[in-house]
């Protein structure tokens, strides 16, 4: 799954989890003690003894999923945590711990955290304050190649369906899946904006992809082609995001670029926002600012940003990201996880220690 390709980890030694923690099963949450350390370094919320795979923030809390190299003793290697932004190390909550988590991902809304647990092929939820027991189960026995949450539903491309379809599952209470659309080709990313589901669909391997949309409630069988020149490479992470007017994506090849189209679709070629850019893999739009993650060298990732009105490359805001997807925003700050260690697939030996940073957003009004 795109954005999670870096999750594949190999056999090695878990550095820091206690034996008691390692003995915990899937529903056990008492893993907090040695996961997070506080830091005196300015701008560092804490030091995490995991490889951070995904982060998110809300008003109060920081959420992340982390992983370790796979172990031969079956110990857990995937974890889902949160902490209060103001005092992270002492407010840690762990929602889940699993033996593997290559395709896991999560979202936070309405006071709940939702996540897909690939090991049990289940969609789960807990209150953000903590599970207080077994996580709630919203759906089981399904898999997908791409998924996205909005406040009410989880939308996903069913990986087992040929041809692929996009379905939705309700989040607020367990319920049957609802068909959204037939999705020709291979779907690698889905995003939701207002009344529509948007997705990238690769019909010919090695060819340019289509960007399509349809109504997310499944009320229309019509598929609209938004763009037909999306360059999706399986060799790097790929991302789609939207703002009120446009949909943006990463042409994620080595000499890559960021392109966009109006939400209603391009009439011709898509608009180039920024190029060339080495393997862009993550996108966030925040008002008039575009944040993007990209490679600086093989398997070295950085976060940069630009003003959408005149996007140009600049020095990265932060380098040595732990993974391409480990960036989140709130009203004031940018959050990112970094490490100085090797995060390439060639690292079979050493578990990762990451720093979670909080830095002010760029001030475009500054001289």
């Amino acid at each position, binding site marked *: 799954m795109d954005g999670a390709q870096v999750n594949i980890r190999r056999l090695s030694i878990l550095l820091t989890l206690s034996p008691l923690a390692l003995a915990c099963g899937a529903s056990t949450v008492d893993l907090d003690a040695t996961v997070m350390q506080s830091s005196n370094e300015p701008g560092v919320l804490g030091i995490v003894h995991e490889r951070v795979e995904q982060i998110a923030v809300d008003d109060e809390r920081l959420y992340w999923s982390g992983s370790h190299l796979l172990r031969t003793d079956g110990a857990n290697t995937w974890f889902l945590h949160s902490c209060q932004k103001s005092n992270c190390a002492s407010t840690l909550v762990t929602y889940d711990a699993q033996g593997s988590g290559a395709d896991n991902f999560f979202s936070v809304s309405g006071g709940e955290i939702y996540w897909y647990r690939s090991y049990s092929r289940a969609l789960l939820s807990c209150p953000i304050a903590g599970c207080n027991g077994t996580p709630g189960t919203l759906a089981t026995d399904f898999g997908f190649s791409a998924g996205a949450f909005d406040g009410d539903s989880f939308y996903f491309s069913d990986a087992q369906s040929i041809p692929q379809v996009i379905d939705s599952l309700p989040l607020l209470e367990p319920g049957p899946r609802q068909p959204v659309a037939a999705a020709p080709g291979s779907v690698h990313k889905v995003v939701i904006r207002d009344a529509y589901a948007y997705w990238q669909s690769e*019909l010919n391997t090695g060819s340019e*992809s289509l960007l399509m949309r349809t109504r997310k409630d499944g009320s229309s069988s019509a598929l609209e082609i938004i763009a037909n020149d999306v360059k999706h490479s399986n060799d790097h992470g790929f991302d789609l995001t939207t703002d009120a007017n446009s949909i943006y994506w990463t042409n994620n090849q080595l000499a890559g670029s960021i392109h966009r189209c109006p939400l209603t679709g391009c009439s011709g070629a898509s608009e180039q926002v920024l190029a060339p850019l080495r393997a862009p893999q993550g996108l966030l739009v925040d008002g008039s600012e575009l944040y993007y993650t990209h490679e600086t060298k093989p398997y070295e990732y950085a976060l940069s940003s630009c003003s959408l009105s005149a996007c140009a490359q600049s020095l990265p805001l932060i380098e040595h990201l732990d993974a391409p997807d480990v960036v989140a925003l709130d009203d004031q700050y940018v959050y990112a996880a970094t490490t100085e260690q090797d995060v390439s697939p060639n690292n079979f030996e050493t578990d990762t220690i990451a720093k979670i940073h909080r830095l002010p957003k760029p001030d475009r009004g500054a001289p």
Partner: protein
Amino acid sequence: MTRLSLSLGSLGFCWLTGCAGRAVDLDHAAPASSALPSSDPFVAPTDESSGVWVDDQRLYWLSGFGRVQSCLKLDCEHTRRTYAQLNQGPITATVGGGHVYWTSSQLTIFSCPVEGCAAEPVTVVRDPAFRNTLFADRGYVYWSSDFDIYRCPASGCATTPEVVAQSVHADYLVFDDTRAYWSGFSAPSDGSEPPQNLTAPVPVEGAPLGKAAPPAPMQSLAVGAGYLYWTTGNQVFRCPTASCNAAPPTLLVTGEAPITSLKLDDSAMYWLETDSIHSCPLFGCEQSRALTPAKVTHEGIESARYAIDASYLYWLEAPDEPRTTTRPPMPGGIIRRTAK
């Protein structure tokens, strides 16, 4: 009907009706001559090679065991140089513009000057979407990636490689003094089948030189003396590089079997046909001449099964059966040398 098929139709009509007047460079069947030039085993590489290249001074080869090597042609035995010796073997290699290039199993492109590496080979770039074939010209290495044709200097890429052409896969890429030409295709995004037979020689900057739908895919491409040459099926065509779109291409040769690996020197063209290397003059090709026995290897790097310099043809002879030794992981053939 395409421009090329019109041309072929005209040629067929003229053959049937005997109107041979316009076919100055028309094809003729290419029976092999009975007297082959003598071939001698080239002295340096003793094991199988999966590719061979040559320039004015040196002969280069990719050993079946993953060594990228060269020697001076005048004294190969005592001047052997090793650029790389990789455990898993280079995937491919090429030589051009004073540099040797090769790729590792990690899809990283390396380079060294032909005179020899400094302390270490230069890591030009790592491209996980690298597609099989390297091309080299004047200090640059070129390759097809997922969607585009890239190039980088031998000294190493900047953060991103330079995009030579977008949204095209190059199966063949050749160079003259000012331009690059390639054949390839761009798969449609609408899910329809890629046009397998489409060939599109295109200069680096400018409009396509021509698009044609010949009866078989393009199998090799060469440029020289103001003309672009290519092969499809059993045939060799050419057009002037300055006006390739202006007229149908000229059919030069019709062989008795598929023609591949076309190469040029100043006066002749060379190709592989039925495991033998043939040649014919660039102008006035009446009858081709077989230069080797039908023992050229099927294995190794397709474009590097033979190489030519001013005097000689260097080619990879398929090992005799049954084999007496274990074959290398990258099989090919034994380098032979034949006077042109």
